[in-house]
């Protein structure tokens, strides 16, 4: 790892001022960036430690929902009794991230802002499109873990587990920058590569995520996060799905279905949700939701297996979420 100067800002304004300058990068839990720095993928001359900022490490319950500081660890989210009970998809997603050792240090802010795991992007010797090169090597290379839904020209999948769950629960992120703070629906935080090739989200240089706000679910809401991995003990998702259902008796009144592992952003499938709303949740409606979720899929040479996998994951997640209602 190259040497760097390590900055310990005490206020968000100081952190923003530091991060607005060239050669700086932010570190929170460091579970992504330290490995990338050891690999020589990033070589910041100045590292700005967000952990030194006070007040961003708490989960607050308010009358309208939850306020989660960006520095809250994934373990704290996974173990929080209110999140487990009322925001189940988020607790299950946080628990599905990596390993206990990583969840004990990794933060929710870092989980949302982590960089993709595409092996061409991660290889410091490969100058891919995302790093300013002239081609996406996944298009003709080994693309078994890549996107089945992407407008191009890059085919990463977004690696976050918490993002699909938070989007399905209607979360917003607070972003601090040089011009003050702004709030963005998490759904609009992430950007497809045709809009933003070098990054994965709307963050501008100097901006940092400081808080995640999750609205209180309406009565009758149940949710789940289901993740399928190649290595079950710990791995990134081949495909995952967060499903939030608002039930009234046997009838689904509102639904959100957001997939991970299929697209460069967490993929919010309105057509899958449409198959569920106004109907009882049955094997037939859940199967229809799964099929609808992948209707836009155009797989690459080695990842067509993800199409039936995603349909099955959505179906199983819908049925699991609905079972939660009856229990």
């Amino acid at each position, binding site marked *: *790892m190259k040497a760097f*100067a390590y900055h310990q800002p*005490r206020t968000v*304004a100081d952190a923003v001022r530091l991060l607005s300058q060239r050669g700086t990068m932010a570190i929170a839990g460091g*579970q992504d960036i330290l*490995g990338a720095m050891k690999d020589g993928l990033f070589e910041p001359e100045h590292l700005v430690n967000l952990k030194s900022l006070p007040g961003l490490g708490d989960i607050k319950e308010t009358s309208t929902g939850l306020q989660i500081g960006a520095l809250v660890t994934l373990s704290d989210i996974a173990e929080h009794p209110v999140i487990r009970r009322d925001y189940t998809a988020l607790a299950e997603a946080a628990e599905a991230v990596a390993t206990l050792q990583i969840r004990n240090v990794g933060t929710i802010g870092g989980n949302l802002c982590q960089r993709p795991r595409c092996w061409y992007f991660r290889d410091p010797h490969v100058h891919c499109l995302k790093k300013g090169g002239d081609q996406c090597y996944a298009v003709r290379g080994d693309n078994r873990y890549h996107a089945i839904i992407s407008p191009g020209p890059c085919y990463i999948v977004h690696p976050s587990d918490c993002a699909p769950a938070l989007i399905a629960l209607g979360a917003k992120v607070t972003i601090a920058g040089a011009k003050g703070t702004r709030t963005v629906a998490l759904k609009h935080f992430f950007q497809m590569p045709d809009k933003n090739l070098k990054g994965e989200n709307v963050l501008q240089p100097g901006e940092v995520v400081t808080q995640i706000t999750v609205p209180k679910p309406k009565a009758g809401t149940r949710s789940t996060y289901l993740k399928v991995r190649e290595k079950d003990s710990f791995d990134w998702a081949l495909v995952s799905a967060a499903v939030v259902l608002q039930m009234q008796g046997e009838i689904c009144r509102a639904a959100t279905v957001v997939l991970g592992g299929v697209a460069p952003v967490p993929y919010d499938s309105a057509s899958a949700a449409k198959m569920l709303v106004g109907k009882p949740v049955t094997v037939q409606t859940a199967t229809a939701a799964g099929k609808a979720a992948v209707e836009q899929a155009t797989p690459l040479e080695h990842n067509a297996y993800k199409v039936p996998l995603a349909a099955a994951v959505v179906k199983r997640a819908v049925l699991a979420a609905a079972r939660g209602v009856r229990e």
Partner: protein
Amino acid sequence: MDEEREKLPQHTPEEVDASRRQFLRNLGVTAAMASLLSSGAILEERRAKRAQAETLQTPPSGATELRGTVAVTLQVNGREHTLQLEPRVTLLDALRDHLGLTGTKRVCDRGSCGACTVLLDGKPVYSCSVLAVDAQGKKIETVESLAQGEQLHPVQQAFVEHDALMCGFCTPGFIMSLKALLDKTPQPTAQQVKEACAGNICRCGTYNRIFEAALAAVQSMSRGG
């Protein structure tokens, strides 16, 4: 001939072990010297110095900046140590290379294998993926803290009795993950034992015996052993 053999110095096993370690340490020093002399290392040092020479144009007033070598105070196994480290030094390298605590193993150095697992304020973390400067003010426990003299920790004792290792390189990491589990959950289920070890890899594949040993440690601890 026999007389000569009798004249050879006799070493106790402890002495042999100590001199083997000293030999390996000296080897490490030689290797480190060789790599320092290599041109790659020199270039890297130069680049590091150049990077440190470039200051930010408008450093904010309230922020502290750590550059070059800084004093880092670590509370390891109940003792406080102040080291002179660069901010880029990981907790793993601080423990192994600066404190001589080589029980914590360096394998993947990328937060994927678990051999470097230590406890930070009682929670298992990958010491390769935590900067030493960030571990200040926290209680650090390594595998060296477990045995009390000749008395092994129940998890260590169970690993010996159940032959829960082959090459043994992953063992300190597994032991620390299981120690953290049992501190928090004294009567875990078999499933909880598996989940606690999910962040540790054993390339020899001794998982079944590791799980058996963990459950045996639970039994012996509940008997007060």
